[in-house]
C-alpha cells in the first residue's frame, strides 16, 4: 500500500510543475499570429464604422426609448399593405419559376461531368461566377434604369440574382452524382438527352426541388429590397413611411411581412422534408 500512495503523490507534483500542452509550439505560434491579425483588422473596422459598443451599452435605455416610437403598431395601416405584399409574393413566384427553368441548361453546361469540353464549361462557370458577385440591389437599380419603375425590373433582377445561385448549387450537385448510371445508359446507345433524362435527372431531382424552394424563400426576402429602388413590392410603402417618420405604420407593415415570411418558410420546410 505505502509505495503506491507515494507514487501517486509524486505524480501530482509532476503534473503541477511541468505544464505541457498537446499542441506543438509551431501551431501555437501560427494561431497566435492569425488571431492577432484577425483582431487588429476587427478593431480597425470598428474604428472605420464608428462602432462604439461602450456607448451602445451605456445608452441602452435611450435606444429602447427610440425603439418605442414604433409601438404600438398602427394596425389599420395593414389594409394598405396587403396588396403590395401580394405583389411581392407574386414577383417572387414568377422570378423563381424563370430562374429554375433557365438554370437547368446553364447548370448542365457548367458541370464537368456532362460537358467534356474544358473551355466550354469554364466559360459558363465564369459567367455564373460574375453573375453571383452582383448584389440584388445593384441588379435592381440597373434594370429600373432600363425598364422604368414597375415590377418588370424587379422580376428580372430577382431572376438573374437567383439564377447565379441556383446554377452553382445545381451544377455542383450534378458533378457529385454517380457517373456509372450515366455510363450505363451511354453504353446501351442512349443519346445525350436520354443520358440526362434517365442518368442525371433521377439523381438530382430531390436536391433540385429543395434548392428551388430555398431560392423561393430567399426571393421573398430579397423582394423587400426591390421596392426601395422602385422595382415593385412591399418595400416601396416601407420606404415612403420611413421617410415620413411614420414608425408605427412601418412597424405594422414589418409585422405583416414577418408573419408572411414565417408562413412561407413553414410551408416550404414541410414540402422539403417530404421531398428529400
Amino acid at each position, binding site marked *: 500500500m505505502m509505495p503506491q500512495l507515494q507514487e501517486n503523490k509524486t505524480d501530482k507534483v509532476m503534473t503541477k510543475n511541468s505544464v505541457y500542452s*498537446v499542441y506543438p509550439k509551431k501551431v501555437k505560434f501560427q494561431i497566435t499570429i492569425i488571431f492577432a491579425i*484577425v483582431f487588429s*483588422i*476587427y478593431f480597425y*473596422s*470598428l474604428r*472605420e*464604422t*464608428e*462602432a*462604439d459598443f461602450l456607448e*451602445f451599452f451605456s445608452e441602452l435605455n435611450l*435606444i*429602447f426609448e*427610440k*425603439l418605442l416610437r*414604433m409601438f404600438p403598431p398602427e394596425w389599420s395601416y395593414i389594409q394598405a399593405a396587403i396588396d403590395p405584399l401580394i*405583389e411581392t*409574393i*407574386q*414577383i417572387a*413566384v*414568377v422570378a423563381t*419559376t424563370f430562374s429554375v427553368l433557365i438554370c437547368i441548361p446553364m447548370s448542365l453546361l457548367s458541370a464537368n461531368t456532362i460537358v467534356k469540353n474544358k473551355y466550354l464549361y469554364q466559360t459558363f462557370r465564369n459567367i455564373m*461566377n*460574375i453573375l453571383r*458577385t*452582383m*448584389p*440584388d*440591389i*445593384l441588379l435592381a*437599380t*440597373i434594370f*429600373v*434604369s*432600363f*425598364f*422604368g419603375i*414597375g*415590377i*418588370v425590373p424587379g*422580376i428580372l433582377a430577382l431572376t438573374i440574382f437567383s439564377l447565379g445561385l441556383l446554377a452553382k448549387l445545381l451544377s455542383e450537385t450534378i458533378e457529385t452524382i454517380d457517373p456509372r448510371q450515366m455510363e450505363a445508359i451511354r453504353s446501351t446507345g442512349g443519346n445525350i438527352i436520354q443520358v440526362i433524362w434517365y442518368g442525371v435527372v433521377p439523381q438530382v431531382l430531390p436536391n433540385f426541388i429543395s434548392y428551388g424552394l430555398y431560392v423561393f424563400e430567399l426571393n421573398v*426576402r430579397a423582394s*423587400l*429590397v426591390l421596392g*426601395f*429602388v422602385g422595382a*415593385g413590392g412591399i*418595400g416601396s410603402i*416601407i*420606404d415612403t413611411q*420611413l421617410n415620413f417618420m411614420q*414608425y408605427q405604420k*412601418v412597424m405594422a407593415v*414589418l409585422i405583416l*411581412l*414577418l408573419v408572411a*415570411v414565417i408562413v412561407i*418558410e413553414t410551408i416550404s420546410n414541410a414540402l422539403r422534408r417530404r421531398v428529400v
Partner: protein
Amino acid sequence: MMNNEFKLPPKPKSNRKRVRNLIIALILVVIYYWAFSGVLSRIDWSFVNKLSDNLTRIVPRLANPDWAEIGKVTELIFETVFIAYAGTLIAAVLAVPFGFWAAGNMVKSPIWNTFGKWFLILDRTFPELILAIFFVISVGPGAFAGVLTIGLTSFGMLGKLYAEVIESIDMDVVEAMEANGANKVQILFYAIFPQVLPEFLSFALYRFEVDIRASTVLGLVGAGGIGTLIVLTAANRDWEQLGLIIISIIVVVMIIDYISTKIRKRLV
C-alpha cells in the same frame, strides 16, 4: 411475338401516390395561375417603347466608367467590407455559446436544448432589412447600425451551422478525458475545440462572403455602406459613376471570394 417477350413488366402503381401527385399538381397550377395573372395585370407595358431608347442611351455611359470618382467609391466599398467584417466576427464569436446551447450532444436536458434551437430559428426568420430598420431607428443612421444588423442576422445562421458541427464530433474523446478526470474547461479546450475549430472558421469565412453582398443592401435604409451611393447615383442618372461602382463591386467581391475559398480549402 419477339417484341412482347422482351417487354418490361409494367411498373407497380399505387393509387394513393397518384392521388397525392394529382393534388400537388393541382395546387401548383392554382398558385401559378394566381401569380402569373396577377403579375400580368400589374405590368405596365409602356416600357416596351422606351426600352431600346433607354438601352442606347444608358449602356454606352455605363460601359464608360468615370474614373475620377474612384476615391469616393473605394472608400465606400471598404466601409461595406468593414461592416461585413465586424458584423461577421461578432456573429462568429457570439454563435459559439449558442451553438453549444443548440447542440443535442452538449446539453443534457432536451427541453433546454430545444429552446436553444428555437432561439436560433427565431433569429434567422428576421430579414436583414427589417433588422436594419430597427437599428437605424434606435441607434441612428450610420455604419454602426449596419454592423449590428449583420452581426445579428449572421449569428442565427452560424449558430445553427456550429450546432450541426458540434453534434457530429467524436464523443469518445470527450469520454476519455472525462474518465481521466479532466474538468469542463479542459474538455472544451482539448477534446472539443480541436475537432470543431477548423469547420467553425470555414463557416465564418463563408458567411463573410455572404455578408459582403448583404451589407451593400443596408445603405437603402441608411445603415452605411455603398448602397446609399448606388441609389443616389441612379437617381441622379450619373451612369458613368454607376458603371464604376459595378466594376469595383465585381472586382472586390471576386478577390475576397478567391482569398476566402483558398483559406477554406486549407482549413478543412
